[in-house]
Structure formats: structure tokens, C-alpha cells
């Protein structure tokens, strides 16, 4: 290699960018050539100075300015398809052909709403008048319960099926469910939950209880259940011993790809660490030792990071989460709603009597008719 070629390689010596054989040649040459040593020193100095130019940072307004610009461009992008168009069209729908004074419209709407609300608030009434209604509701919720159970079994089956339809590898799925249940006695629920979670090897991660202004009681439990007991526990919770199911949602998040990807990377890193350790044993110069140790540290940090992430995923996969909210609703009509109740009762009483009146009239009607005919005939005669 001639001097010119060496000078071309020299700048790369700084960042270890040379091949092994090139490196040897340069190293040897440096011991013999003062000129090149000086050049190398210059390159090194330049690099340091350039490196310090790294200090220039973005001004404070940079980030807020950027966010503002992004929001602006987003608005323009979305605004193009809508805004002017549909807003105007919507407005046009509200222009009535008739001129109804808005005030009257509003007042009548309010009255209707109030009447409807008070009438429909007629749940479990102790009065005999409304007993047919409560029976109806119980029937309804019973049917819904059975329907949901069937759906639930379907969903759970689907979850299993999709797991089975994939290929051989063990699936890593994070299962989560969220359910809401109405119960008759919320104090019993606590014992039941403890019993269930302990029986199936899970635990209560956290729980809370509260009560609202109407003395309705609520409690919330966040449960961790081993993944293979997930469906069993879910079935138990939504079963009839506990209460009636109001809401349920289940989700399964597949993290297999990430999981196995991490495992492979981890394995490679561990191998890499091993190789570095061997290199370290063979290293002689302080410079080399320091370099290798630096690399080792880097690799170790990375390994620990990946291991941490892997453990995190493992935890979430092996323990599924179920969030259960219980509620005990006090039937309306107790306590503060006295006035509304009275009003409702009054309306009911009124409608009852009108009804009876009409019925009464209906029964008399034929007789009245006969009397009326007789009267007319008699009048005619006269």
C-alpha cells in the first residue's frame, strides 16, 4: 500500500471503521511516520470540535409550534370533507314550515317528559296496582339472562376456536373481561368473590365500594385469575347464584408475535454476551478491554430490558383480568321522592276513575239506549 492510500484510510482510523488487515497496516505505519501521526491528531481534534457542535438545541417554542401546526393540518384535512357541507344541511332540517312559538313547544315537551318519567319510574311498587308490571320485569330479565348465557358460551367457544385454528405454537393471549351484575344483597357478594377467587387460584387486585345519593350501593372488584380458569370463573360470576347479568364484554389480545420475537432476540443477545466474554478473556491491551467492557455493558442493559418486558408479558398472559361491578338498586319511591310519588299516585287514581266511568257508561249504555228509544216512541204517541 502506498502512502497516498494510507492517507485515505487514515481519517477512518478514528472510529474503528477499518478492516482488520487495513488496521494492522495503519497501526504499523503510524509508529514510523510522524507526518501521519500529526494528521491523525488533527482529525481527532476536528472530530472533537465537531462533536461539541451537538450542543445546539431546539428552541422552547419548537414543540408547541409543531403541535399547533399539526392540529391545523389535521383540521384542514378533515374539514375538507365535512364542516361547511353537513352543518348547513343539518340546519336546513330544523326550519319548520309551521310557525310554532318555540316557548309553547318547549313547555309542552317538558310536561310530556315529566309525565313519562314519573310514569315509567314505576318499578317494584308495593301497591297492588302495579304488581303486574313487576312480574313482567322479572320474566324479562330472566330471559335476558339465559340469552346472555348462551351468547357467552358462544363467545368463549369462539375465543378457544380461534386459538385452536392457529398453528402449533403455544398462543400467548392476554384475556380481559368486564361485567356488571345486579344483586339483591351486596353484602353477600364480598364473601362469594373471595371464595371464588381463592378456589381457582386467583386474587383480588383491588376493590372499592361506594353509595350514591339514592342509597344505591355499588362495589367494584378487579380480579386476577389464572388464564386457564378464566372461563370457569366468568361462568360462575355470571351465573344465577350471584345475581343477574347486566353487561358483559370479553377481549383477548394476542401478543404471541411480540413474545416470541423477544425470546429470539434475548437468546441472540445472550449468545452475543457470551462471545464478548470470551473475547474479554483473550484481550490484552487496556484499550481493547475497555472497549469490550463497554459493549458488554450495553448488551447486558439490553438483555435486562428485554427480560423485563418478557416477564411483564408473561404476567399478563398467565393471569387474566376480570373487572366486576356489582350494584344493588333500591326500588324507587323510597324516601325523597314522596312528592313525585304522590303526583304519580294522583294521576293513576284519576286515570283509574275515568276508566271506571267509561266502563260504567259502557255497561249502562244499552239500557240508556232502550230507554231513549222508548221515550221517543212515547213522545211520538203523544
Amino acid at each position, binding site marked *: 500500500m502506498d502512502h497516498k492510500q494510507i*492517507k*485515505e*484510510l*487514515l*481519517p*477512518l482510523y*478514528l*472510529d474503528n*471503521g477499518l478492516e482488520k488487515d487495513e488496521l494492522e497496516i495503519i497501526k504499523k505505519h*503510524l509508529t514510523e511516520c*510522524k507526518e501521519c*501521526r*500529526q*494528521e*491523525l*491528531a*488533527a*482529525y*481527532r*481534534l*476536528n*472530530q472533537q*470540535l*465537531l*462533536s*461539541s*457542535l*451537538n*450542543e*445546539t*438545541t*431546539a*428552541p422552547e417554542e*419548537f*414543540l408547541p*409550534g*409543531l*403541535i399547533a*401546526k*399539526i392540529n391545523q*393540518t389535521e383540521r384542514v384535512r378533515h374539514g375538507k370533507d365535512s364542516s361547511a357541507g353537513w352543518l348547513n344541511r343539518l340546519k336546513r332540517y330544523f326550519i319548520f314550515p309551521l310557525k310554532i312559538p318555540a316557548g309553547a313547544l318547549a313547555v309542552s315537551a317538558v310536561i310530556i317528559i315529566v309525565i313519562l318519567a314519573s310514569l315509567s319510574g314505576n318499578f317494584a311498587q308495593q301497591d297492588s296496582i302495579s304488581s303486574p308490571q313487576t312480574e313482567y320485569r322479572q320474566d324479562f330479565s330472566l330471559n335476558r339472562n339465559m340469552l346472555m348465557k348462551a351468547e357467552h358460551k358462544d363467545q368463549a367457544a369462539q375465543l378457544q376456536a380461534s386459538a385452536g385454528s392457529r398453528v402449533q405454537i403455544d398462543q400467548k393471549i392476554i384475556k380481559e373481561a368486564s361485567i356488571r351484575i345486579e344483586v339483591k344483597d351486596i353484602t353477600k357478594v364480598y364473601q362469594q368473590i373471595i371464595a371464588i377467587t381463592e378456589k381457582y387460584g386467583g386474587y383480588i387486585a383491588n376493590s372499592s365500594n361506594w353509595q350514591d345519593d339514592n342509597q344505591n350501593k355499588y362495589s367494584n372488584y378487579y380480579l386476577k385469575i389464572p388464564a386457564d380458569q378464566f372461563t370457569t370463573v366468568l361462568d360462575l360470576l355470571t351465573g344465577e347464584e350471584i345475581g343477574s347479568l347486566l353487561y358483559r364484554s370479553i377481549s383477548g389480545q394476542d401478543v404471541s408475535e411480540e413474545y416470541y420475537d423477544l425470546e429470539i432476540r434475548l437468546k441472540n443477545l445472550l449468545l452475543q454476551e457470551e462471545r464478548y466474554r470470551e473475547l474479554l478473556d483473550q484481550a490484552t491491551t487496556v484499550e481493547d478491554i475497555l472497549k469490550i467492557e463497554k459493549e458488554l455493558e450495553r448488551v447486558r442493559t439490553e438483555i435486562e430490558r428485554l427480560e423485563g418486558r418478557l416477564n411483564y408479558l408473561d404476567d399478563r398472559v398467565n393471569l387474566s383480568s376480570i373487572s366486576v361491578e356489582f350494584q344493588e338498586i333500591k326500588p324507587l319511591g323510597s324516601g325523597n321522592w314522596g312528592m313525585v310519588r304522590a303526583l304519580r299516585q294522583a294521576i293513576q287514581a284519576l286515570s283509574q276513575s275515568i276508566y271506571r266511568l267509561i266502563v260504567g257508561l259502557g255497561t249502562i249504555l244499552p239500557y240508556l239506549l232502550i230507554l231513549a228509544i222508548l221515550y221517543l216512541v212515547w213522545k211520538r204517541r203523544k
Partner: protein
Amino acid sequence: MESDLELVQRFKKGEKEIFEKLVRRYQHKVYNTTYRMLGNREDAGDLAQETFIRVYQNLDRFKEKANFATWLFRITTNLCRDQLRKRKREPATSSLTNSGDGEQEILIPDNQYSPEKVSIEQERKREIQNQLGKLPLEQREILILRDIQDFSYHQIAEILKISPGTVKSRLSRARRSLRDKLQGIVKGGITDGS
């Protein structure tokens, strides 16, 4: 600390606010790069913002196998290159030098608090910034990426979409070029290094 990939995945799932975290992570590096490429703070700020806007608009389509940082800087360097070529075609009113490809105004160094005693090193630093601005586009680019932003040869190859061999030869030429330019100017201060 979450990796870039994790942040991108969260963004793709719908957490658009996570974008801010990504920006915070890279804003100074990107801004520094555009500033060193373009030579003035205004253009640097505009272009850096433009870079992130492009990222925001395309992040949903970002392939997770790729490396986020190299993609980000590819956009940055491409935008800088376009801007510099545009300058060449339409000479700006305040332009001082406009020959070669992409050379531009003299960079004003950052130490506004100008110390009374200008050491040889300070002098040389100022000159380096100056000469960096005068280098041809490709050489300036590669010096910025390697010596200022500390990317590896491999990463630079990915960012600029050139072969590692090209990275080496360009880098070598750039460093030699810089040294040549500086040699005439600052006398002394070169110590015997070994």
C-alpha cells in the same frame, strides 16, 4: 424507558398524544442536524417542524420492521437536500456565496456571549463551523451524521441509502477536505498525537 417501536405501536393503536413523546426524544437531534445543514435558525426550525409533520402523517403506515431513527433522519436529510438545491436554483437575496452545490451563507457560531480571551481552540471551533458550511452538500451531510450526531457507518448507510463502502469513502474525503481547509487558516495548536 419505552423503545421507539413501542411508542410507534401505541400511536398506531390510537394514542395520538404519544407522538409528543417521540418528538421530545428527537427534537434536538433533528433541529441540530437541520441547523448544521442549512446554516440559519429560521430555516432549521421550519424544516425540523416539516420533518415531524411528515412523520406524523405517515406514522400509521410505518413498517415496524424498519428502524424509526433512521427513517426519521432520512426524511430530515432529504428535506435539507431539497431545500439546499432549491436555494441554488433561486439565489436568495441575502446569499453571500453561491457556487458549487449547496454552499451557503457563513454560519454564525453560537457563542454570542463572546469571551474576551479567544483561545486557539475556540478559534478553531468557529472556523470549523464556518468551513462546514462551505463544504459540498454530501460531505457536510456525512460529517454531521457521523461526527455531530454520532450515527454508526451502518446507520448512515441506511439513512442515506448508500453502501457502507460509499459511506467510508465519502467520510474519508470529507474529513480530509475539512482538514485541508482548516490548515491554511489556524496556525499552530496541532499537537503531536501519540
